[in-house]
Structures are given as C-alpha cells and as structure tokens.
C-alpha cells in the first residue's frame, strides 16, 4: 500500500513543486546571469538581491487582466498555453534524479517512474508541446503570431529529426530505452556517453537550443522582428504559462542531456577508484549540478550570440545536423557490431 500508492504520490508532489519553483527561479537566474554578463545588477528590489522577484512576478501576472482578442478562436486560444505547459511538466515523470535509496525503511527510487520506453515517452510528449505554440499563433488570428507559429512549426520539425537520430545512437550504445538503464549502462561501461558520442552530444545540444526556442534559435518569439511572436496577443497568466513552459523545457533538455550524456547521477569518472571520495556527495546532487551547468550554458549562449535567420536555421537543420546525425548513427552501429 505505502510502496505502491503513498510513495509515488509523495514523489509526484515533490517533483512537481520542485520543478515549478525551479522554473520560476531559473527565470531569476537568467535575469541575474545576463545582467552580470552585461555589467548590470539585475533585479535587486524585491527581497535581498532580488531573490523574491519570481514571487512578485507571479503575483503581478495573476492579478493582470486576462484579455482574449475579439477575433481570436476562443477555445483554441485558451487551450494553447495549457497544451504548452502540461507536456513540459509531465516529462519529469521519467527523469532519473538519482538511484534507489533507503528512506525510513522503504526503498525509494529518486524518480517518479521508470518505464521501459522512457526515452520514447520523452520524445513524444515533448513534441506535443510544440502544438501549443502553433495553435497559439493560429488562434490569435493576428499576423505577427501567425508568422511566428509558421516559423515555430518549421523549426521544430527540422530539429526533432536530428535530435531523435542522436537519441537512437545513444539507444544503440545502451541497448535500452529506459532512462535508468541508460545511466546504469554508462556506469558499467565506465564512460559518460559525452566522451563516447561527442558528435551526438553536440547535435543534441544545438538541437536542444532550437527545440526550446532559445537564442540563437529564438525566431518564433523574435522580439525585435515579430514583437514577441506567438505570444504577442497573450497577457497575464496565460502569457506566464508560455513563459514558464519555455523554462520548464530548458530544464527538461538539461536533465535529459545530463542523464544521456553526462552520466546522470553518477559521480565524475565512476570507475576510477582513486576518486571514490567523490561518492560522499549524493547522486541527486551530482545530477542537479550537471543540469545546472547546462542551464547556465543556455543562458550564457543567449547573452552572447545574435539570432539566426529562419532560412539559415532550416539550412543548418536539414543540411548539416541531420546528415551528421545519420552518419553518426551508422558509424555507431558499425563499431558496435565490430566490437561484438
């Protein structure tokens, strides 16, 4: 009873609330890091060093007037932010934050569930989130959002293929689709897949930037061109949902990259006995540190790089990343067969 019902429920509550606060605070982190890059201070007013800023932001957005444009498609307009936010959250169900540990006499795994098609689940659920953006642009019945949603759909289709192909290389290496087994496979082979599959890692990271609509591939919301893009017509909490979904997706990509390429909860060099003192640090801390590293790189890239143009992005996707990903996949298969 406890193991089957109570513990999973507690885990869901913990993961959801932790995720939502992490999302809110990653907004603050982004504002702070970009401010430091740009020799500014960032938010400083709400709480010491602005640490209460996300709460103030949320309050402001909740009490704002909720506007639906007269000409908008009302139902789709309402559904789009939900469709964007929910997939970003339910992906966390299969993210392995750590191994199974003993807690109050019960074995507790530090993930909500470990399904045998975990990676497939992530890929498919994450693609649903794209519909949120496409429908938002369509339902607004306004020209700028429409252009943005056209861009978003083209962009996401081209990057999904490359990213999924790199995931197949990882699956070939690990022989399993389960997130936990992939981390375990890295433990037994003694190598993080980032070192075995550097190309796949690179493509996954670039594709991750594009999939989450982040700079330098943020053309769907391109503030300077499309005045906010797909969320131009949104205000208040609905806008906030899009905003939070973006950051939730960034954390998802960071966590997936951590699990697939940086050994998840494993300490650095898991098979080197000399470094076993690093084992004192619990696995979930390693996981969070590594994810945090990705999150930081995402923000860093945004502060540094200009934006690609829509056609250039498509060219990179179809003419560079997809051929490279296919080549990498074929090579992985050949090496795997030869080694067997």
């Amino acid at each position, binding site marked *: 009873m406890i193991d089957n019902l109570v513990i999973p429920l507690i885990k869901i509550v913990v993961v959801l609330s932790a995720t939502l606060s992490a999302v809110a605070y990653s907004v603050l982190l982004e504002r702070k890091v970009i401010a430091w890059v740009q020799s500014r201070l960032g938010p400083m007013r709400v709480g010491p060093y602005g640490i209460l800023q996300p709460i103030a932001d949320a309050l402001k957005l909740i009490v704002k007037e909720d506007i639906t444009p007269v000409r908008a498609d009302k139902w789709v307009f309402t559904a789009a932010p939900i469709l964007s936010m929910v997939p970003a959250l339910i992906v966390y169900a299969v993210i392995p934050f750590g191994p199974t540990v003993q807690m109050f006499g019960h074995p507790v795994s530090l993930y909500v569930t470990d399904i045998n098609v975990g990676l497939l689940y992530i890929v498919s659920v994450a693609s649903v989130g794209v519909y949120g953006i496409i429908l938002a642009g369509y339902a607004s019945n306004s020209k700028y959002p429409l252009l943005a949603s056209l861009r978003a759909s083209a962009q996401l289709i081209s990057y999904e293929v490359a990213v999924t192909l790199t995931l197949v290389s990882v699956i070939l290496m690990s022989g399993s689709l389960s997130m936990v087994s992939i981390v375990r496979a890295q433990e037994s082979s003694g190598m993080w897949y980032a070192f075995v599959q550097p190309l796949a890692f690179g493509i996954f990271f670039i594709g991750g930037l594009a999939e989450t609509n982040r700079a330098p591939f943020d053309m769907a919301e391109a503030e300077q061109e499309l005045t906010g893009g797909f969320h131009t017509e949104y205000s208040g909490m609905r806008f906030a949902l899009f905003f939070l979904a973006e950051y939730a997706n960034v954390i998802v990509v960071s966590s997936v990259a951590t699990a697939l390429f940086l050994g998840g909860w494993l300490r650095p060099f898991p098979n080197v006995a000399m470094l076993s003192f690093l084992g004192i640090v619990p696995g979930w801390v390693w996981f969070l540190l590594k994810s945090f590293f990705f999150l930081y790189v995402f923000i860093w890239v945004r502060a540094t790089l200009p*934006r690609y143009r829509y056609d250039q992005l498509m060219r990179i996707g179809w003419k560079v990343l997809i051929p490279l990903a296919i080549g990498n996949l074929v090579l992985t298969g050949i090496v795997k067969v030869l080694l067997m």
Partner: protein
Amino acid sequence: METSTIHHGAMFDTEELVINMGPQHPSTHGVLRVVLRLEGETVVDSDVVIGYLHRGVEKLSENRSWTQIVLLTDRLDYVAAAISNAGYCETVEKLMSVEVPRRARYIRTILSELQRIASHLLWVGTHAMDIGAMTVFLYAFRERELILDLFEEMCGARLTYNSMRIGGLPQDVPPGWDKKVLEFCTIMTAKVGEYEQLLTHNRIWLERTKGVGVISGPEAVALGLSGPPLRGSGVPRDVRKDEPYAAYDEMQFDVPVGTAGDTYDRYLVRMEELYQSIRIIRQATEGIPEGPIVGKVPRLIKPPAGETYHAVESPKGELGYFIVSDGKSTSPYRFRVRPPSFCNLQGLRRLIKGHLVADVVALIGSLDVVLGEVDR
C-alpha cells in the same frame, strides 16, 4: 492596401500578406512605419510611411531669431545634437562671412567627433540588438555614458546640448577637460575592440549581415544615399575630407570605404570610423591652440540678403542647411534642412525588396535613421 491574389498553377491560390510594421514596433527605431507585402516571409514590396514625428522645425525657424534656431537644431538628430548645432552655426557664419577663431574650430571638431562616437555607439548597440545580440547594446551604452558625462561637464546638458553659438562657442572648455577626453580615447580604443570581438568574426553575425541589402556604388549615388551607407558601397565621399569645415583640414584621418555594399560592409565602415574619430579627437585635443572662442559677431544677428548651402558630415551622412536671408528681418526667410536620415531612408524600399522579415529590421538598423531628423 488591398491584398492581391497570385496564381501558382491551377492547384493553389496564395495571397500576399500585408503586414504593418510600426509606428509602434520595437525595431523601427522610433515612429517609422513600414507596410510590408509578404509572400511567405519574403518581402515583395514595401511602403515606407513617415511623418509621425513632424514638428515643423523648418517653419518654426522662420519665426525665431537666428540665435534661437540653434536650440531647434538640437531636436533634429537628437542623438547627435552637437553636429546639428555645428552645421547650423557654420551655415550662418558663411552667410555673414564671420571668421571663427581657431580655438573654437578645434573645440567644435572635438565635440563633433565625440558626438559621432556617441551616435555610432547607439547605432552599434541597437543594430546588434535588432539582430539578437543584446549584450553589445549595454556595452555600447556604458561607453556612451562616458561621452555624455564629458558633454555634461562641457555644456551642462546630456542630450540636447545647444553647445554652439554663431561665431564660436558659448563657453570655453572647463579646466582639466582635455585630459579627461584623452583618457576617454584610451578607454574607447579598448572597448571598440570588445564589440568587435563579439561581432566582427562571429559566424552568426556574418551570416546575418553578409550579402544582405547589397547596393552598388552608382545605385547608392542615384538614390541619394550619403554617409556610411554610401561609403559602404565603396564611394569615398566624406564632407570632412571633400569640403573641410571646422578644423578638419588640419587633421589626419582616413575615410574607410567598403567593397561589397552590404550590411556587413556598412558595419565595418562605422566600426572603423569609431577608430578614426578617436584619432581625430586625440590630434585636436593635443593640438588645441590658445585664443578667443568667439569671433566678431554683432549683438543683433542680421545676415545680409542672400542664400547659402553648407553641409557637415553627421554620423548618418551629409547634413546640409540651406538658408535664405532677406537682410531685413531677424529670422531666416527660408530655413531648409537636408537631413541624411531622410535621404538614406529613400533607399530602404530598394534594400529590403526580396529579403526576409528578419532582414528588414537588420536593414533599418543598417541605415541608422533617426526619426527626429526624418520628420523634422
């Protein structure tokens, strides 16, 4: 504008999308309105609509005394007010045949070049921001702040300086100011390198700017472009070199020109102009002569009947004033400005044709227009 239907074979009908960019748009740099006709994201044709910032400066000037007009010229190109001041004062001096003391001409040169750097900094920041590189914007504004401080010390204002008078300057430089200017030159040289590090060899920047908005030299001349958009196309026209004013005939500097005439070349030209401006400021500050700062000007300014045209090189291009005096009244009979932004904006329709929406904002930025000057 109505939408028109294009027929692509028998199967599909596609409609052109008419999209209104501005006057409320983050990247039209003020109240510029561009009506775009798009096919997909490609601009088929466009219509540039101006006039949202019209204040009637030219007509107003006909009812102001000659000295009061200096103040109105501040409001033309408000990011380069000192150069507008200089242009107006020199035109009236030419009309009155007033000799400006050498010291005043040197200080005018220093102020003009500081102003050029400030204007180019604003340009590099906003242009980079339009293309998505937001950090450059804050770096550029950080250094622009230093220039504004120098101006504040010199004439008390930070944006609309009213910093020149007919026949010279309202006041001499404050003590120690020249040292601060030289210090600023040292800082600025290093900082321009910093922007270049972020942009000049950045792959994304190159892809976004190379081959975008190409215009040949003869075509640029035909469109009436001037300043960096003209020099980017390889035409070495610079009023400072060709018809020297202030103390430019005594300064050593180069006029950078581009080769391809695209957005990237216009970018390179302006970046090199930053270095050249620093070079001029150094020479002028080190060689500043002693002497009076105002020439022999009557208390009541009343130029003799006649007309004249005089141009200066503003950061945007050739800024000219055409002034007619009837010799009787204390205000001009006709006051006409040839604003570089307005003339350069003529090229926008030609430049954005066939490009994508993302390039439109890059090209508006690349022309570096200030709407205060376009609409007057």
